[in-house]
């Protein structure tokens, strides 16, 4: 599958995501933040983690307003799968492609850890690495209720108070389901030696 991997200045999981896709048999291509692209050329798109634009202003805020995101937005409207991981999730929220926002972790510290996750839609359980400073998912109570009612919450932390996210939400998807955002890193867990293989065939 032809997959676009978006690069902003400050993105730092781009090479990992690229490798993850190659190892799963996909054909990734980097997409530079200043360039538009033809949504027809790709079947899917990943926005990797990192600190786009140094997290200045708010994490994801500057990246969400870049040229490449206009193309990502068009791609989202056409129903193609788009995944934002970590900073990518923050960018999708800032771009309005996903509801809610990601705020600083409750205790103020960056968290590097493993997280047990559960998908409330099918009760599937997985274990993935987490590394974020701004991972606390937040949305108004009306929005959160809607997310649950419309089956848009797709991953939750099993441990209470993991980072202070409302309802322990770790990942959400848009109403039509093709745009997904996730704080943990599936690309860091797809071979035995990495400590978990739950990131293998995680998506597409």
């Amino acid at each position: 599958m032809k997959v676009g991997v978006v690069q902003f200045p400050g993105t730092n999981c781009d090479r990992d995501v690229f490798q993850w896709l190659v190892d799963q048999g996909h054909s990734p291509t980097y997409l530079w933040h200043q360039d538009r692209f033809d949504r027809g050329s790709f079947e899917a798109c990943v926005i990797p983690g990192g600190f786009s634009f140094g997290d200045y202003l708010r994490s994801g805020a500057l990246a969400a307003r870049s040229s490449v995101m206009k193309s990502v937005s068009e791609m989202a409207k056409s129903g193609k799968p788009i995944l934002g991981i970590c900073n990518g999730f923050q960018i999708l929220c800032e771009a309005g492609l996903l509801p809610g926002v990601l705020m600083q972790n409750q205790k103020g510290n960056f968290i590097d850890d493993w997280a047990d996750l559960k998908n409330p839609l099918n009760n599937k359980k997985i274990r993935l690495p987490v590394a974020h400073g701004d991972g606390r998912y937040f949305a108004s109570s009306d929005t959160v209720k809607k997310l649950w009612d419309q089956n848009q919450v797709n991953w939750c932390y099993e441990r209470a108070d993991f980072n202070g996210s409302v309802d322990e939400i770790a990942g959400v998807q848009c109403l039509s389901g093709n745009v997904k955002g996730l704080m943990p890193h599936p690309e860091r867990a797809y071979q035995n030696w990495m400590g978990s293989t739950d990131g293998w065939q995680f998506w597409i």
Partner: protein
Amino acid sequence: MDLNLKLKKYRIKPEEYDLICKLLNRPPEGVEWALFSSLWSEHCSYKSSKNYLKAFRSEDPRILTDEGENAGVFDLGFDERMAFKMESHNHPSFIEPFHGAATGVGGILRDIFTMGARPIALANFLCFGDSESPRMKSILRGVAKGISTYGNCVGVPTVTGATHSESEYNSNVLVNAFALGLFEKGQKMISAKACGIGNLVVYVGAKTGSDGVHGASMASESFDSQIEAKKPTIQIGDAYFEKLLIEACLEVLEKDLVVAMQDMGAAGLTSSSFEMASRGGVGFNLNLSEVPLRDSRMGPEEILLSESQERMLLICEPSKKAQLEGIYQRWGLEFKVIGEVVQDRRIQLKWQNEVICEIDPDLIVEHAPRYQRPYHQLQVQDLNLLKNHLVQCEKDWMDPEWIYRQFDQRVGLRTEVGTGNPVASLRLKSNRNLGIAVGARPWLLKMDPKLGAYDAAIEPCLKLMAQGFYPQAMTDCLNFGNPEKVEVMSQFVAAVEAISDVAKIWKAPVISGNVSFYNETENRNIIPTPAVAVVGLKSSSDLKIGSCLSEEGMTVGVLYLQKLSDPFDAKKIFESASLFFKELLQGRVRSARLVTEKGLDYCLFKMSESGFGIGMSKNQTQLQACLYQYVVEAGPDFWKNLKIPFEIIGTTKKTNQSVNSKTANRFNQTWGLI
């Protein structure tokens, strides 16, 4: 200005002033004061240590760099090469913990990617004072946050470290940062020697500000009670710029667009330009008016001395300029040609179309004073003296996972084992693993500086070997007090002797390093603390040696590598460890761990995290007191013909002991972190 005031301002000693006058045949003028001040500082010139560091020289063919490069490069075979180095940022971290620690990480990363290697791992060695001493809790928080903010943002995992707390660091903490990089296949190593007459001298990275002016000479001085006044000498880092700089520099190196490169670290533009020219045996014409500035009011002296971060100086052929400029612009970085390489061995500095200085770079770089400061020989003392302290240490130690959990450990897809384990393990493309371990134990160094220095290098070697890594090479960060004091100089000389001895015995040469003197506050010197990082290689990723008990019914024993009742013998420790290592390579060892000062009980407690414990047939008091002992889990074959003294202590069985967080919580409570 009065001469004495001037000497004080530029931190130049009267006898050094006389030497300068002799070299120049006249008194220094204008910016020359600033040049000598910074490059003749202890921090830049190594004037008290250089004579002794020769002991680290090695003919090992696996070392690919000459002396004087930014970091050591080592050949791992199978087309894999690594560069690594450790560096101190003690003084800045005490004055301003967050920025001090952050820029320490930034500086060491630049030393690595300047060589052409992509940084893939960070580690650190930290010594704090008592939790109750003034500012200490906020220093610890600041240092942890500084390292995490910087390392996480640039996308290089922090995979291991060591943290200590002793009252001797109350007014002088230690923050040592280690970085390791790998070369892409075919990527050539980049030198810091300028060459090619007519080539351009190019400034890239962030703009120059007035932060960190006089930083190098500040770091070469003891602290007094006026540390607030030293804040302007602190550099302010921006990890985002560093990330851009890494990507841009690696891209231009991959495309072979530059002939030499050096980061602007201590003493900023001065040291980078003078050292590059001096090493290459050439001169530069530099126009300081071309340097990109954050503050247009800056004058030539501030520009020369600023230690603003995330800046590099590079030399390129004129024909490559356009392509080079395009790449740096794409990454949103400054790019400015500020001079050219000339044949004459002189550096000409221009400011607003006027020549303000013309001087032979060798005068400043090569003719810096060298001191043979007085010292006496220190010997390793009787190990039995350690006995009581070992028992005490078992009760009093800290578990710094609170700090390490703030570091991204897995970015880059190489981390197999991160912090919270005896050694870090990183996967290589060749299906081998690199192991990293950091050593130096202040409690031991305080009792016996020479033995402690041996230990700083031996302990990480033994930890690596227990996990299947053979030590390849090491780097050191020698943190000491005021070298003008005989006691301190003696400790320093003893440490260099001990570490180079271990390097020779293990055939793991010291390929890079850093000396930090003047860790002294109001006449109190720190514990001599030579931190050592050792990098080991596991020849196959398939070789599985755990650090936790792995199976029911296995025999667990203690291997004595150095008893307290025997005289200290580094060679014998090496021989015993090598015998054990051979057995391990044969697959006869299931898991192993070096017992640290935390004691055997703690070691067994950690080894039981896997859900297996041992039925103890002996308790700790029945065993021999040791400086070094391995706990080994193995089948019956292993023990049959073992030529190392050992004692069986039990058999593994399933337990329901789960890992409790009591120990970690104690650390967090002491430091007020929960």
